[in-house]
Structures are given as C-alpha cells and as structure tokens.
C-alpha cells in the first residue's frame, strides 16, 4: 500500500513556553475531505500552517507520500507548490481579480495563453467572471473569499488546505463556496483538509472528522460515526455544546 498523501506523526509545537500542539497523529487518505474541528484557540490554524510547510514543528514529522521536507529547502518549495492553503480571513493582492487568480500560475511560469484560459475558468467556477477586471480590494468580503478559493483551485493542487474559509460570510456565499468545494473535489479528486469550528459545516462536507483538543486529536472518525456515535466523552461534550471554552 502506498503511503498516504499526508500524514502527521507526533507533531509538537509551542510558542514561547506555551505548548499549542502536543502530539498530533493522523493520516489523511487520497481524495478524502478531512475536517479538523475544535474550539477557537485549539491550534487548528497552527496545525494547518505546519501542514503547508510555512512553519516547522518542534518535534514530529509531516510526510507526503512517506517523504518529509525540511522547510526552506528547494524540495519543500516544490511540495508547497503541490498544495495550497486558503487562509482564515484571506487577503487579496492590491490588483485586479484576474491578477489575483493568475498569481499562483505566474509563480509557476505557466505560459500566457494557457494561463488566461485557466484564470477565466477559475473565475467562472466561483461566479466572478464579470469582475475579472475589477480591483479585488473593492469586492465584498464574500466575493474576496471566492477569489481566494479560485486563486487556490486554479493551481490544481494535490492537497487543498482550507482554514475557516466561510467564517463571517452570509449564508448565500457559504452555500456557494461549500458547493464549489464539493464540485471541485468531485472533478479533480484532490485531497482536502478543512479546518472549521462550525460543526454543521463539517457534517455537510467531511468524509472524516478529527477533534482537536488540548493539543491532541482526541477522536478521529468517519463523519457519520463522529456525529452519531462519538466514542470519547470529550467529543460528546463538545458536540452537545456543553464544553465551556
């Protein structure tokens, strides 16, 4: 059996004296939507930044198909380019919507003719074809979030990492983005890791769910089991909203 596209082994990370992650272990399977849930401040964003090779863990290994890459090495850049992280509160470049979506393709030296086709397809995918020439900063929050998704999707990543990508959005944009993601995964078969504190969203999208608490994954289970038959008492408390955070 070939190694999982993404796996975490004993990941530790602290900021100063404050431990945030205290031994994360998980294997994400090819083509699945893996959701990390947990209260805010649990370390979800921290974990995603480690997964995207933007920061290195204090201890433990992150492997991609069995290989790990020290950050800032040329190989890590290549691996970084096989995946994309869409950040919490995404920020757009002070440029047009087109240029924003084209950004990652420029970095990879995609030839102009091909690039235009992919960018317009990406804008179309999130319903912003008409806004191509508009300044991205002037778009609404929801539209900017869709730009951020398109900007990531046009790169055809093997792994898509999404951090609270619908926080602070209106229901219309939430639905639109969630559908985009499901459709995108369906069309490309890419692996998706979604971080959210919204349980309903996890339920709607995820194949498997992991609960991050006190720096560890206390329960990792298929979505149906996780929500219907949680094993751990912490999970039951979290799901019922009894946990005070």
């Amino acid at each position, binding site marked *: 059996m070939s190694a999982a596209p993404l796996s975490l082994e004993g990941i530790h990370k602290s900021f100063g004296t404050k431990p945030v992650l205290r031994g994360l272990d998980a294997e994400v399977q090819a083509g699945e939507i893996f959701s990390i849930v947990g209260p805010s401040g649990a370390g979800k964003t921290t974990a995603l930044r480690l997964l995207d090779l933007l920061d290195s863990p204090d201890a433990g290994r992150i492997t991609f198909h069995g290989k790990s890459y020290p950050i800032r090495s040329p190989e890590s850049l290549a691996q970084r380019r096989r995946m994309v992280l869409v950040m919490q509160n995404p920020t757009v470049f002070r440029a047009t919507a087109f240029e924003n979506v084209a950004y990652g393709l420029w*970095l990879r030296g995609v030839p102009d003719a091909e690039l235009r086709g992919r960018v317009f397809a990406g804008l179309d995918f999130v319903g912003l074809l008409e806004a191509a020439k508009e300044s991205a900063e002037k778009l609404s929050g929801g539209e900017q979030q869709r730009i951020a998704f398109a900007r990531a999707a046009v790169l055809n990543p093997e792994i898509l990492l999404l951090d609270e990508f619908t926080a602070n959005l209106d229901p219309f944009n939430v639905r639109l983005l969630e559908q985009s993601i499901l459709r995108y995964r369906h069309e490309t078969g890419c692996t998706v890791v979604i971080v959210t504190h919204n349980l309903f969203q996890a339920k709607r999208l995820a194949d498997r769910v992991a609960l991050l608490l006190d720096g560890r994954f206390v329960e990792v289970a298929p979505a149906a089991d996780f929500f219907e038959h949680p094993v751990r008492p912490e999970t039951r408390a979290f799901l019922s909203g009894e946990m005070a955070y």
Partner: protein
Amino acid sequence: MTALRRPREPLPWPSFVTVWRVAFVLAALLILAGMAVSIDLQPRSFIVLATTTSARDSGLLDYLIPYFQSDTGIGVRYTAVGTGQALDLGSRGDADVVLVHAPSAELAFMAAGQGLCRSPVMMNQFVVVGPNQSDPAGILGLTNATIAFERIRTTHALFISRGDNSGTNIIEKTIWSWVGYTPSTTNDTWYKESGQGMAATLDIASQLVAYTLSDDGTFLVHSANLDLRIDVQHDPALRNFYSVIPVNPSVHPSIFVAGALRFAKWLTSERGQSLIGNYTAGGVRPFQPDGQDLCP
C-alpha cells in the same frame, strides 16, 4: 551583479524590477555624465574664492568679477561665508584664494604657511547708525565710537548686535571692551542680538528704532530702504582693511595658483584699484582703494 542576473523563476509584477533597473541605469548615467563634465574642467579655467558675506552683500564682487573675467579669461566662483570659515576653506585647500578683513586672523594664517602672499586691497569703515528722526543717546556727529557706545549704555538706548561672531560682531565686542562693559541680552533689556547678517540686522534696527554697528558699504547700499542714518563715523579705530591671500600651493597641490595670483595682482593693479574706487552703490562709494601688490 545579482540585480541584473536573469531570474530563474518568473517574478510576479516584474515591472517593479524593471523600473528599478531603469532608475539604476539613469542614476548611473547621470553620475557618470556629471563626473565626465567635472573632470573635463581640468585644467581649471576658474578660481574658487572664499570671502566674507560683507564683500558679497556690498555687491562689489558681482561688479568686479565680470571685468576680471574679460581681462584674464579666468572665471571666479566665490562662496561667501564667515571670516573664520573663509580662512579655513583656504587652509583646507578648498579655496584657491581668500578675500577677508581680519588682520590678526590673516597674520596667523600666513604664519601657519597657508598663504602664498598677502596684499592689501581696499578699506572701508564701520559706522554707528541710529534712527533717522531721533537720537536718544545723543551721539550724532561724534567721531569716537567708544564714547558713542558709552552714551548708548548710560541712556539705555536700544542697540541691536549681530551676535553671530562675524567680523563686525567682533569689532563691536572690541568697542564694548574699550567702554569697559560687557552688555548681555539677559541683563540689559536695551541690548538685543539679531543673530543674522548685516542687511537683516540693519532692517531690524530700522524697524525697532535702534542703534547698531555696520560697515558703511552695506549700510549705504541698503540705506534707501532703512529709516536709519549714520551717527558716528571717521573713527580711525573703526577702519576695516581687506586683504587678498592666494593659498600656498606647496601645502595644497590642487590649488589653481596661477589663477589665484592673477586675481590678487589684478585686484591690486591700477585697473582693479580704479574699478574698486569707482564702484558705487546707493549713490555712494563704499570702498577706498588701498591696494599694494605684495605677491611675487
């Protein structure tokens, strides 16, 4: 140069690098062009003259330089600074020739071997000027500045000092030392310092209806706009002698010594002396020729 190497990977918004490269090339070209121009000027066809503000403010230099240039083909670039700085520019080799009026400092400059030779050029005099309509200290018509200052002190008549350690300011302090009193702005409400040049100080004195000490040249040039008149003049102690000193080329090889000597000799020549004697400003002749060629 790293900046000019072709990038291995495409840069987003590369126009900013392009703008930088264009700016870099432009800056380099401008610097090279500037250097080419200044290097082209060697051997020099001009001399650098360091002189005092009073020589500039009287208008004499702007009047003399075109004559000198047409007589000799040598241009004069002059910078007008304080007496001390003018001599210092000479001793640094930054000026080819100095024209100043501070005999004791000039002698020290010569004694240090910085000057090639020192020729007297001309003289003017210091005068005590005061309000046109009144004379609160009662000094009009005196020919002794020390007595005049004494009366200003006893009557507490308003007096404006340059307060800037200029040659004029030093003379003023010397007169006060003859009076035997050192006025200060903290103790004497009648004594004020302008901290500015002669013309500006005269303007302040005029506006405040006060006395001040001035060289007669600057005063006469500006007198039309001033509500001031000369109260005290012809005090032998207040005569002001100008000398020209080419800088010693054996100390500073970069000196354009031929040009500097030419300038010194021209100023003390009959031609230079008669131009100085005939120079008029505000309807008067501020400088008396006093030249004597002491240069080799």
